[in-house]
């Protein structure tokens, strides 16, 4: 069988190498090559998505997880990976090159490829070290796709770390004045978590051994009759959760995020927030929940509490930021809290809530779309005026009507306006949470109020109100440097806008993927 998933993962990597080898002066060739690669990858991913949507009789159910619960009748869901690829790598240690997609990863894979296309297209104005920049973007895509598609824990970890390298270089190499600090802080925070996860993975492989055979294959582990005792589960869960909690991030492990997001160039921030943060949530869902159900049950209140604190606390933080990117960064943490909450919406019996999971995954996609749009718009705005401070703006809608409309739509989506995409995800996730734990549900739902507040503040302080009397914005305007969105920028944002509306009106296809 054609190794479709490997192709999807490694195509950007190869593309990145090709881009690096192109002659430096041929700037347009470089840009379009990178974009072409990203597009091709998106098309492949869409192909896989379509294939996945077909009824698949050949699917082999590879494991069962006590995961899904209807209110009355708990049922056991099966995990089915399609398009599996399997190559022996280090069988002695249970390490294999195995890939596969299920409904969740097919969505996140497509999201990643889409966001890469968008972010690369949005990076057309980058001039500094263009080839390297684009190569790193593509490498980042490869890493992310690997994370979503790997079904062997070792392989997963390899990709998990692999995506850190380009992210580090992108933040640190092309970022703002405090980029070095931000980049190193980002990597170190992440590293503490991921190294603990590494310890966890090693230990997991060690515990899942049968007669001297170790295994790290998810499929094998899920089918295994070995049942870890609850203490081991607890420690392993914590080790894994450390990595995911930093990546998502959960409060109080989020200190790296505002720095990294605000220092990185806008398209990179968009990738980090849109796609990379999802890797953490995906990890929670894919690994923490399925591998350690008992520990998840025991620790769900803890994680949920952190998530709720993060939701409300970061909403408050977003409310008082004056830097637009920091505002969005905190909003991002707040929204990801909802996702985490949805994932850990476990019932009293420790079974996950289908609505919670559906909503969380939906929200991963939605947040990816929305936050990307927001960061890109803010990036466009900053590129025109050179400032991100809200106080410097005001009344821009008159000069930038299209940008104002687009920003408005993205903000509305972000604040969870019913009828737009985020609402669908948030509603389902919070519904799931509420069903199983009313307190978390209520507190989580409360976020809609500050979310509306800070998002509207963002729109109003930039686009509405009185125009500032002086400052960088006026200076930019005097120089004529304040044009509205041009066609290129608009086209970059267009797919995101379309999805914002489409998913809001009809989220069914997405929930279909999650449930099948």
């Amino acid at each position, binding site marked *: 069988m054609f190794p479709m998933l490997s192709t999807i993962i490694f195509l950007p990597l190869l593309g990145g190498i090709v881009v690096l080898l192109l002659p430096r002066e041929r700037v347009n060739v470089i840009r379009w090559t990178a974009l072409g690669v990203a597009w091709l990858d998106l098309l492949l991913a869409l192909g896989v998505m379509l294939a996945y949507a077909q009824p698949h009789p050949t699917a082999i159910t590879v494991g069962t997880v006590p995961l*899904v619960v209807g*209110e009355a009748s708990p049922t056991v869901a099966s995990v089915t990976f399609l398009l599996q690829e399997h190559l022996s790598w280090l069988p002695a240690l249970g390490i294999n090159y195995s890939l596969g997609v299920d409904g969740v990863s097919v969505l996140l894979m497509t999201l990643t490829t889409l966001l890469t296309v968008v972010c690369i297209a949005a990076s057309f104005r980058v001039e500094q070290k263009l080839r390297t920049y684009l190569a790193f973007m593509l490498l980042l895509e490869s890493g992310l796709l690997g994370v979503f598609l790997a079904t062997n824990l070792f392989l997963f970890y390899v990709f998990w770390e692999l995506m850190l390298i380009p992210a580090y270089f992108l933040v640190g190499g092309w970022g703002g004045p405090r980029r070095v600090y931000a980049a190193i*802080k980002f990597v170190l*925070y992440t590293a503490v978590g991921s190294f603990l996860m590494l310890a966890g993975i090693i230990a997991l492989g060690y515990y899942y051994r049968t007669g001297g055979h170790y295994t790290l294959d998810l499929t094998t582990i899920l089918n295994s009759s070995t049942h870890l005792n609850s203490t081991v589960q607890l420690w392993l869960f914590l080790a894994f959760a450390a990595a995911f909690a930093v990546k998502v991030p959960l409060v*109080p492990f*989020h*200190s*790296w995020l*505002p*720095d990294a997001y605000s220092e990185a160039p806008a398209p990179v921030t968009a990738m980090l927030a849109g796609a990379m943060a999802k890797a953490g949530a995906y990890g929670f869902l894919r690994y923490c929940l399925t591998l350690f159900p008992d520990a998840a049950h025991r620790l769900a209140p803890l994680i949920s509490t952190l998530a709720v604190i993060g939701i409300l606390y970061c909403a*408050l*933080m977003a*409310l*008082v*930021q004056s830097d637009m990117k920091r505002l969005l960064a905190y909003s991002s943490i707040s929204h990801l809290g909802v996702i985490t909450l949805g994932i850990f919406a476990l019932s009293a019996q420790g079974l996950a*809530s*289908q*609505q919670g999971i*559906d*909503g969380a995954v939906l929200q991963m996609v939605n947040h990816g779309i929305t936050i990307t749009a927001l960061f890109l718009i803010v990036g466009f705005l900053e590129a025109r005026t050179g400032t991100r401070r809200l106080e410097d703006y005001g*009344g821009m*809608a*008159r000069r930038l*009507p299209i940008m104002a409309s687009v920003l408005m739509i993205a903000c*509305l989506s972000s604040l969870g*306006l*019913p*009828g737009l995409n985020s*609402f*669908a995800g948030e*509603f*389902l996730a*919070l*519904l799931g949470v*509420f*069903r199983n734990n*009313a307190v978390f*549900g*209520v507190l989580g*739902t*409360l976020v*809609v*109020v500050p*979310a*509306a*507040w800070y998002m*509207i503040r963002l729109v*109003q302080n930039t*686009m*509405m*109100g009185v*125009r500032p009397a002086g400052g960088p914005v006026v200076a930019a305007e005097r120089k004529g440097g304040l044009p509205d969105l041009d066609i290129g920028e608009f086209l970059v944002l267009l797919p995101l806008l379309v999805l914002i509306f489409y998913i809001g*009106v*009809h*989220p*069914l296809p997405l*929930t*279909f993927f*999650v*449930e099948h």
Partner: protein
Amino acid sequence: MASLLLWVLIPPLLGFIILGLLGRTLPRSAILTVAWGTVALSFLFALSAFLSLLGVHPDSQRVSDASVYTWAIAGDLQVHFGLLLDPLSATMLLVITGVGLLIHIYSAGYMADDPGFWRFFSYMNFFIFAMTLLVSADNLLFLLVGWGLVGLASFLLIGFWYQRPAATAAARKALVINVIGDFGLMLAIFLLFKHLNTVDYGYGGPNCIPGTSGYGVLTAASCQQLGSLVSLAIPLLLFVACAAKSAQLPLYMWLPDAMEGPTPVSALIHAATMVTAGVYLVARTHVLFTLSPYALPIVGAIGGLTALFAATIALTQLDIKRVLAYSTISQLGYMFMGESAGSYSAGIFHLTTHAYFKALLFLGAGAVIHALGGEQDMREMGGLRYRMRITFWTFLIAVLAISGIPPFAGFWSKDDILGALLTQATSVGGAVRYLYYGLWGLGVLTAGLTALYMFRLFYGIFMGSYRGAGPLKHGHAGSDEEEEEEEEEVITAAGRRRRGESALYEIYEAPAVMTVPLVILAILSTIGGLVGSFALFNYSRWQPLNTFLEPVLGSAPEGNLPLLWLSTGASLIFALLGLLIAWRRYGQGFVYKESRNPFYRLAYNKYYVDEIGVALLINPLLWLGRQASALLEGGLLDGGSRLVGRAFSLLSAAGRRLQTGYVRNYALAILIGVVLIILYYVVRG
């Protein structure tokens, strides 16, 4: 049949999309064609839906549910986008599209000079879409969608003149408070789903079997014992949403500020339709409100308090739109009082009549403001009856209607409510009955106050002699920045403007496009009450609205005749009393006197609620946020990370100091290592 409703929804949506995307490039006539045409179409479809419903017999069959598409399936949650056609939604649709159409027409005149003409109409169309969606949805989720979207429309239209800081602030306030309502509604939906596993309304009789057609929260509510806490929480959470949307205590603050929007917006959204969504929701889900014995009394108490509270503020306001805004709040309180008495049809009835006369009031006020070039202060008005005759007469009709003077519309509906309250008070037992007596008293008192402040307003605008200085040159359409700069000039020149009678002749009646809707609404305000109950005259066969709504809302408790007459008499007397006082004080024209009466100051300053809210809630929250941002984020987390880094650096630097570069030190280190190891072995061995 219900699929007909789809055609009510689609035209305004299309209108919004067309105007939103292309409006900038279209000529005015095209914009108006699209905007009017789509709403008119919508109205026609609503009318035909209504008529088709009338053609169905028996009455209990007058319900039709059409599923359009599946929104999402998540586990055992299935949400379909479906439309429900029943008497309630048909009535609401008729009111919304009808009044909406009139206001669309009116707006063409009012907004004629505004550069954001296209934007205005696209938002207005969007609002019609959202509101029709809200009332025609057949499940709570799409109700929530509509609920949120009308909030958005309201936000967009309040902040229509986005360069005015006051407008944007008002818009933000409206949105945030409305979102608090959404929050309540979401929680209510969660709670219902948790216990009943569905978000559909359901139709037909009680149905306890999940999955069957007609199963829904309304039909299944009685099946399960929900427990007293849950059965109280559900209606209260729903009422949080209603209170936010319908500006009830304590979430009413946004509505007066919302008057920053263009006046047609105030008429359509903040008087006639959107703010009544709460009333609609209570009526729609009244089954849930009866689950707990405490729910309806609480609703009534809040409604009654709001009615009185807002009326007292309205007594003192000088901005004519603010007077109307507080009057709206007060009237909405009335509607909730009526519903709390179990007479939901009375609430809906008042909703419809209120839509007529309050829209008329706002549009009349709009005409005045338009004529005065944006002036909204009562002190700068007076004597306009000579220059604006149509406006004068129609406004008078509206004032009479709202004051509850027979035979105008308001009399009938208000009477219905008060009668229902008194009936309820006499029929229920226990302590609750005192509440209802109290509510009735509040209602009667408020009726008097209503007449007082409305006639104060009326006299202030139209009677006496003109006190202003002619129309402001630059009116409400202040969104051009060039104009902004000139505005300062006008203000500095204001001192030189002529004042008094001579200036009056610069004022002209509004164009026909504005006066025609006024006339139509005046007619409706006059005869609109006739669809209500004639129970007062013991003519029980003539209560078309009640009968029509009965399959949905159930029958209101039957009152006895003397009681109803007592109620009517009392309210009429109070209303006339109010009128009399107003005539005595303001009959010769409104004179503003600074009053030192503390109660007056209190009411004039709206009981300082906004200030208290800002001081107690908003500022501490923001302060907390800023402190946390500085201390927790900057100090503890970021500083902590740095501190850890610093600690390691210090350790490292200390370690480096040991690395002296002297061979003999190194040798010593080796020796120390040797000694330690040997010591270990010696001790061990």
